[in-house]
């Protein structure tokens, strides 16, 4: 745009697609503001144990991307930040960014003295609340930025002063308040990602009330060494390893009453998780209840690899209902085998619901009007002049697709600020 007043780009969302958009644009020579709601970058992938199909740790690629950001002063990262307002037009946007108080300033060295001094605990957000963490905490082992956070409940508590005094570096600021920053940017990439579909809406599957019915995102944390169980897959009710595990596909997905679309990744995610179970519990029986196995491209190879497991039962049929035995907390999956039309009642120890991807824009839309589809996804990458949607904001996609999409959006954002 010939009349761009600034060559800065804003990327909203520091997950895989947003982070990719930011570093790709910065390495091409542009100033980028990267705005992330969490206290750390990495988004959902930081919470994954492994990626399919390579079964490799997400930390590895994150380390490279973090290094790219560290080496490139053109990227300015705002964490605990959200975009409150967007005004203006392509080439000349005024964006108001709201930054929540971290109560820890840039003097923090990550030494951990505050956590040592703190006794108050909160449900650990990184582990989807499956364990507790000190209310003065480092979000996770490879958190970037490597800086502690104080939960507001601690700041209000009687312990706050003690925790503040425990910091040798004067890094705790209990008076820190929400603040806003106004930034001028020429274009915006919106990549605020997704959230797992809310289990409590799944009436047939216990509405989230059964202890041993967990979601696929929780399973990732259970399998990770830095998760709530140090990587041991255990039943939440009694801490025992399950002997039978059921993966219930399309839990809310491809369902007109919930998420009518297909999230595209859940089949592979569940079968990947089946490998986690197999690695730890060699004789476990694993059921995979599915409608269609959707493994496009060379991911087919991964399915074939997993199918070699003779104690992994591919069961074609959608689970109609899950009931819980109140005493044992065991579960019964009622499912019709669509191939034989027989109704089965299959007892299992642990159920993993393959819940789908709900776009965050369905509940937290952009603060400026852009077109959405009926599910809340932004209708196209070119949302409006100067504003581009990337990753799961636009369509359900896997990690590689998110990166590709973020990279494409970075170029569009550059085009908006190029002076010609």
């Amino acid at each position, binding site marked *: 745009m010939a009349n761009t007043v600034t060559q800065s780009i804003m990327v909203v969302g520091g997950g895989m697609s947003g982070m990719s958009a930011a*570093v*790709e644009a910065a*390495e*091409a020579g542009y100033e980028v503001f990267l705005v992330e709601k969490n206290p750390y970058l990495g988004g959902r992938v930081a919470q994954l*144990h492994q990626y399919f*199909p*390579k*079964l*490799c740790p*997400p*930390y*590895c*690629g*994150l380390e*490279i*991307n973090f*290094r*790219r950001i*560290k*080496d*490139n002063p053109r990227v300015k990262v705002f964490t605990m930040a959200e975009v409150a307002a967007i005004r203006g037009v392509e080439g000349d946007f005024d964006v108001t960014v709201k930054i929540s108080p971290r109560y820890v300033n840039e003097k923090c*060295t*990550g*030494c951990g003295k505050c956590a040592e001094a703190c006794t108050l605990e909160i449900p650990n957000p990184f582990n989807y609340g499956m364990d507790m963490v000190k209310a003065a905490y480092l979000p996770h*082992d490879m958190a970037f930025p*490597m800086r502690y956070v104080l939960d507001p409940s601690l700041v209000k508590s009687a312990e706050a002063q003690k925790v503040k005094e425990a910091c*040798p*570096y004067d890094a705790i600021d209990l008076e820190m308040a929400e603040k806003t920053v106004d930034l001028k940017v020429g274009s915006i990439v919106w990549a605020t990602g997704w959230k797992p579909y809310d289990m409590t809406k799944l009436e047939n599957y216990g509405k989230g009330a059964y202890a041993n019915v967990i979601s696929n995102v929780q399973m990732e944390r259970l399998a990770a060494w830095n998760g709530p169980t*140090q*990587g041991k897959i255990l039943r939440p009710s009694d801490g025992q390893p399950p002997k039978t595990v059921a993966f219930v596909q399309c839990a809310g997905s491809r369902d007109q009453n919930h998420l*009518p*679309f*297909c*999230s595209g990744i859940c089949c592979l995610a569940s079968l990947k998780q089946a490998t986690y179970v197999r690695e730890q519990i060699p004789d476990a029986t694993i059921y995979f209840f599915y409608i*269609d196995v*959707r*493994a*496009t*491209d*060379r991911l*087919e190879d991964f399915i074939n690899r997993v199918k070699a497991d003779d104690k992994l039962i591919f069961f*074609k049929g959608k689970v109609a209902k899950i009931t819980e035995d109140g005493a044992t907390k065991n579960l019964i999956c009622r499912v019709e085998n669509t*191939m*034989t039309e027989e109704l089965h009642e299959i007892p299992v120890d642990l159920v993993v619901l393959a819940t789908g991807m709900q776009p965050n824009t369905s509940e937290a839309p952009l603060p400026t009007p852009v077109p959405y*589809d009926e*599910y809340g996804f932004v209708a196209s*990458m070119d949302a409006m002049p100067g504003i581009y949607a990337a990753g799961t904001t636009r*369509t*359900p996609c896997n*990690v*590689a697709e998110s*990166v*590709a*999409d973020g*990279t*494409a959006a970075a*170029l*569009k954002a*550059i085009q908006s600020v*190029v002076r010609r």
Partner: protein
Amino acid sequence: MDKKLATYICTGCGIGDALDIEQLSKVAQKECKAALVKTHPCLCGQEGVAMLKGDIQNEGVNCLMIAACSPRVMYDVFRFDGCLVDRVNLREQVAWSQKPGDEDTQMMAEDYLRISAAKIGKMDPPEPYKPEEEISKDILIVGGGVAGLTAAKEVSKAGYKAVLVEREKELGGFQRKVAKIATFPYKGIKDNDVESLVQDVSKDGNITVYTGAKIEKTVGGPGVFKVSIAQSGAVKEHKVGAIVMAAGWKPYDPAQLDPKLGYGQSPNVITNVQFEEMVKNGGAKRPSDGGALANVAFLQCAGQRDPEKLPYCSSVCCTTSLKQAIFIKETSPEANVFIVFKEMRTPGQAEDLYRRAQEEGVIFIRCQDPQVKASGAGVTVEALDDLLGETVVLEDLDLVVLATGMVPVTAFGEDYAQVRARMRAGETEQKKEEEELEVPQDAILVSDILNLEYRQGPELPGLRYGFPDSHFICFPYETRRTGIYAAGCVRRPMGVAAAFEDGAGAAMKAIQCVEMVSQGKAVHPRAGDMSFPEFFMQRCTQCKRCTEECPFGAINEDEKGNPLPQPTRCRRCGVCMGACPERIISFKNYSVGMIGEMIKSIEVPEEDEEKPRIVVLACENDAYPALDMAGLRRMSYNAWVRVIPMRCLGSMNLIFIADALSKGIDGVLLLGCKYGDDYQCHFVKGSELANIRLSKVKETLDRLVLESDRVRFETVAISDYDKLPKILDDFAETLEGVGPNPYKGF
């Protein structure tokens, strides 16, 4: 550079509690010969940093040894332009992982200072590589289909020039044959408007288009590619900076299909591609006689997901068949349309198209193994319906459409290994012997697309099924040739919706590449690195290991076998440096000599002190951060280890092992990334090469009369920090069993 070294020791974050700082300062002064040695309780704080800046300004300090936290944190605070900075990781890898106040902990910290001093002594500030010729920022786009056209258009919109080469006489690629498309929002089918994209590109003054053309050869590297384009008998040369490879796909050859699918047995059995051509050329009719369609069956996965044919899923055929079925229903609503499928794969919003087809009355039959029976024009399909449990017979079919898949154009052509074998057959026996070290070669097919004049082969290396990617989930556009980015269906099977974004994404990478190269910087994964390998040619023995082992094909060679490095193709991993038996390859700030000195600087206690020493050569992207995280978790591990980070374990030269063992160091542990089909090495095969070299280490050990247990290779992922302490402790235990290195004290 005239070096003035200052050592700064931070005593914060537990370092001061764990170590005798005074003693450490003495080591810095006496052994490291630091002109200045200072300590500070919080070096990263304002006051600490001001102190460093003051010394740079007032004392002329230009080499800073910062003994504090890991180089992975406080990176911005300790960045001083024009100075050499080395970070000594006293926090995560000493104070937080070792017993405080212990003698062994102190010795470890002191060794790390010595190692740092040795490193700084051998280090020079890198000077960016600037090729003699002018750098071009133009982008070559190979392929004029949707991905290529989009790439060209996006390149132009970003203010760069593009050269687009298309083999066919017209632009548009496969989509030129397509009348209707299925794309967002997938509520129905739409008219194809590839023509408007073709027009945009054709009219664009920034884009030079060659149709009916091919690339005869590509020489050079990023920033300095010279491409010879042949068109109607003439050859034109263009200088370009980077390449988007969007050469597309070919339909799977239906003649290869299982005969039970009926292809070739009736004119009324056609492929999905032929269906598109038919619609474009006058509408959907019965091929045998042009009659109306009353009964139509689509058979999915024709040859696909079949280990004997096309083992993967082409991703788009379900959507394509739904589109084609809806088209028939819209044009002939009374027609019976069946889709016989194994699994319906309509991810994302494409699920809506599946629903739409159901609403249109398309009948779906789930069957794993349908059979086509053709006699003349009459065609019948027999399908065992999974849901009904009985065989459904679809009779009087006017048309059967086989959903065949996509094969990337890179999957065709002779294996370059055979070409090379033929070439080599003419060489003398002696030359063959020189290449005794078997390193894994890239799988390159001579597919006549780029015709790279690269010593390692003329095209992009392929992985499974000939797709030219690098199998990196986090970096999908990476190929194994620098500055060449694959896009569209040559990269992975995809529909038009994705091809648009893919063209834009690859264009982004290409633009970024020319910008980085024009500043003398490396591209992914060491993006921004200014160093590059320099070859001391007088000592080269033409052994070709560097050219053979470079994972990115960055080194050509002359007729005599001398390496001809192409620095803009280099990723700066140092694999060549590790490969070179003559040790003639070095970077300004990373060299065989430097690491050798670092190893030799480690103090080796006498045998009777019973303090073995272990050198750990660790991949800096994975094993090293894992060690940091072990420290962060305050996990303790063996105090005899001395960790030296490597750009990639592939830069490990066997001399390092000889250096270590001949100095009396008891063992060497190599920590690299997983290799094999699902390799995690960011330089593709660095860790694998290190392990292959290790198979030759026996010679070194035999020469020194040492036990092979003294050297161990372990694969470690970045998330394996829970396992690292045990790996280190186990190795230490093994070495205790082997006993002390007899070279101590020599």
